[in-house]
């Protein structure tokens, strides 16, 4: 037996994440340095993870957890790769 989450909670949570995505996108567009853009991309990956977790609750399928694991791994590797590249570029 699984709990039934009200629709209002789903809509509110998705709205919060959507507003967060728009704000991160603004910082991605007009960040003064490239490091701000990397931070914004990191936050965007976390927001996408939140979207996928909420969507797995919405459609009641548990295997979406694997996608969250893979996204967190790829986001970490991308962030470290870009910052290492920026440090060794000079």
């Amino acid at each position, binding site marked *: 037996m*699984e709990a039934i989450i009200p629709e209002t909670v789903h809509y509110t949570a998705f709205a919060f994440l959507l507003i*967060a995505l728009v*704000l991160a996108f603004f*910082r991605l567009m007009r960040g003064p340095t490239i490091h701000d853009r990397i931070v914004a991309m990191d936050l965007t990956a976390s*927001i996408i993870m939140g979207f996928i977790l909420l969507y797995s609750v919405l459609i009641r399928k548990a295997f979406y957890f*694997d996608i969250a694991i893979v996204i967190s791994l790829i986001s*970490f590797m991308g962030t470290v790769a870009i910052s*290492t590249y920026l440090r060794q570029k*000079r």
Partner: protein
Amino acid sequence: MKEMLISILMLSGTLFILIAALGLIRFKDLYSRMHATTKATSFGLLLLVVGVALFFFTGIVLLKAILIVLFIYLTAPLAAHSIARSFRNEDQESRD
């Protein structure tokens, strides 16, 4: 009862991520921006993952939830440290 707990966890988790994005757009320094995004996002994802794991509540889902939380809490400080160090190197060079 369980629905209420899961709803509160999901809403507070997404609210923490929203606060992190608000800090990213409002603060005026890279260090304060990272201070906002790294910790608040990790905590928000922790709450969200715990809520979703309580929703399904099977063994494999709980194991994967522990794995996700452990991985996030291990890698978020490392990524933030890496970005901050590359920014600091550039900052010091431009100041010299």
